[in-house]
């Protein structure tokens, strides 16, 4: 009985896309190394990384514009990486949209259905529906050069979605838009994805964008996956120093454990970790300011001199010199003025043990 149930569960939960040990070399340059990643049906996965981390290359391998030097890409039971791009049920929204300049908005959106030789009546109704969905119906007869960047973005989206792909790839589609439009598009894109229920793989270098939109984030660094987790987990429990620093601000506390006590510069607290060198990540918002009387049971306290205060509106970032070479960044909801010497306190449980991120070439 359980075997049957497990088998059924296995089929139901089987990921849509499975990337297995994919590597890519350009000559001697190892752009991707041993990437394994699953994407579930209906999931919004973001591949996050700096420029040169290999994120676009990974996307291009899934789309079929590059071939992997090693490894496999599977979609269901189908080996994807041996198919040419035009046979993959995957569509891409390109960084600079790549709309066909000689075709109207409508013809651009109809392109995929036309080459698939769908009946004309079906084409026109699906194109109209897709343009409606991205609110571009009024521009149907315009040429791409006559509409704005944000509008081109929507057309590119409609052109991809009209084909009802199983997976949509988005290569930094928002990077060319200005900040306000970008935020608006983030929300729209996310709600569109929920509505159509198609898996999205979204590539970006913007960690905030990744946090806002994704179900899961795959953090890529120098061609290797650093951490794959939900935004909350990757923020709250980063597994490496790089992940902690790349996503949000953090304090990296370097020290060592000896006989059940963690010691990082002037800070000490009880721990159950084994002896040895350690590295902790402590988020600035987890540090309290002005803690004369302890409220935390596992509170760690330190006194320091304020070096710098940066006002950000809703919050304020304060750099505090705690002595012994330790500078902590603290986020408060407004200190109410200039500070000199302050007491800091944080919960030992908020100091997350992370792995060192060794330099890679």
């Amino acid at each position, binding site marked *: 009985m359980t075997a049957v149930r497990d088998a059924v569960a296995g089929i139901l939960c089987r990921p849509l896309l499975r990337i297995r040990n994919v590597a890519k070399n350009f000559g001697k340059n190892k752009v991707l190394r041993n990437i394994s990643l699953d994407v579930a049906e209906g999931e919004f996965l973001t591949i996050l990384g700096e420029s040169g981390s290999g994120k676009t290359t990974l996307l291009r391998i899934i789309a079929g514009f590059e071939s992997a030097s090693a490894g496999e890409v599977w979609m269901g039971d189908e080996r994807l990486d041996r198919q040419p791009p035009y*046979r993959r049920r995957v569509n891409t929204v390109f960084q600079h949209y790549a709309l066909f300049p000689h075709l109207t908005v409508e013809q651009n959106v109809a392109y995929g259905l036309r080459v698939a030789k769908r009946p004309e009546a079906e084409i026109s109704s699906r194109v109209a529906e897709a343009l409606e969905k991205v609110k571009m119906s009024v521009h149907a007869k315009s040429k791409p050069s006559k509409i704005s960047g944000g509008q081109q973005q929507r057309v590119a989206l409609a052109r991809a979605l009209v084909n009802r792909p199983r997976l949509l790839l988005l290569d930094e589609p928002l990077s060319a838009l200005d900040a306000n439009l970008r935020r608006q598009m983030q929300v729209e894109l996310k709600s569109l994805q929920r509505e159509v229920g198609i898996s999205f793989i979204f590539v970006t270098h913007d960690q905030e964008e990744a946090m806002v939109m994704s179900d899961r984030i795959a953090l890529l660094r120098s061609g290797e996956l650093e951490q794959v987790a939900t935004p909350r987990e990757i923020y709250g429990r980063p597994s490496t120093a790089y992940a902690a620093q790349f996503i949000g601000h953090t304090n990296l506390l370097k020290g060592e454990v000896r006989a059940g006590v963690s010691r990082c510069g002037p800070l000490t607290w009880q721990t159950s970790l084994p002896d040895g060198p350690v590295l902790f990540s402590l988020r600035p918002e987890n540090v309290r300011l002005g803690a004369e009387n302890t409220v935390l049971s596992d509170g760690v306290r330190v006194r320091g001199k304020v070096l710098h205060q940066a006002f950000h509106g809703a919050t304020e970032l304060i750099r505090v010199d705690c002595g012994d070479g330790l500078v902590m960044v603290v986020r408060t909801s407004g200190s109410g003025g200039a500070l000199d010497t302050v007491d800091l306190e944080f919960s030992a449980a908020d100091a997350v043990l992370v792995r060192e991120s060794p330099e890679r070439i």
Partner: protein
Amino acid sequence: MTLPPLLWVTAFLLAPYLLMFCYSFWSVSPTQSIVHSWNLDNYAQLLRVDVYWQTLLRSMWIAARVTVFSLLLGYPLAYFLSFYTEKKKDLLYQLVIIPLWVSYLVRAYAWKTILGSDGVLNTLLQYVHLTKHPLEFLLYSPFAVVLTLTHIYTPFAFLPIYAALEHIPRNLVEASHDLGATPGQTFWKVIFPLSIPGVLAGATFAFVLSLGDFLAPLLLGGPSGIMISNIVVSLFGAAYNWPLGAAISLCMLLLVVSLLFFSERLEKKWSFS
């Protein structure tokens, strides 16, 4: 600052054209001197005497064939170079350009050596016993003219096509494949339409340049391969009928200018930047 160029254009371009325009309305006296009396006789003669308009039509027919063959050779070459070569692109490009540095006369004579009765081709054909006698139509025929002009003007058709293909953003090709279009569909629906301005420019070059050519027909055309420029040359030379020569030249000029005008209009219609 603009005066010297203006003077230059006036002295070397406008004045000669104006002079030619005037000549076309003058005539030649029986004693072989130019009579400066205004009349339309030259243009009337153009329409009346068969050899003139027939030669003009034949020249256009030859130029049209040269254009088609240059495009048929130049386009695939440009396409291959632009899309399927990477490291060797510059070298291959230079190889296409190099013939342009070789004297036109040398290339025309080369064809003469290849196509003549004792030429390379006929000798070879007889040697392998494909033919018993030399093929006479090879040289001194419109065939020879079309062949030579195609050889000479293919690079001119190639260059603008290559430039147009190089300007096509490669992500458009990727987008097309991504949307399910096969390489063939992508060529006809994306690449070719976007290269049309280049094709039009190349076709215009090949047509206009071969229409006015007189060396290839002179060296390789024979009596049946005479083109309109050969007539103009003889009218300005041995025949000493400058007014009629000017009238023919003016007609050709009008033809070429209107052609350039239309091809430019078409190119604009097909360019998207």
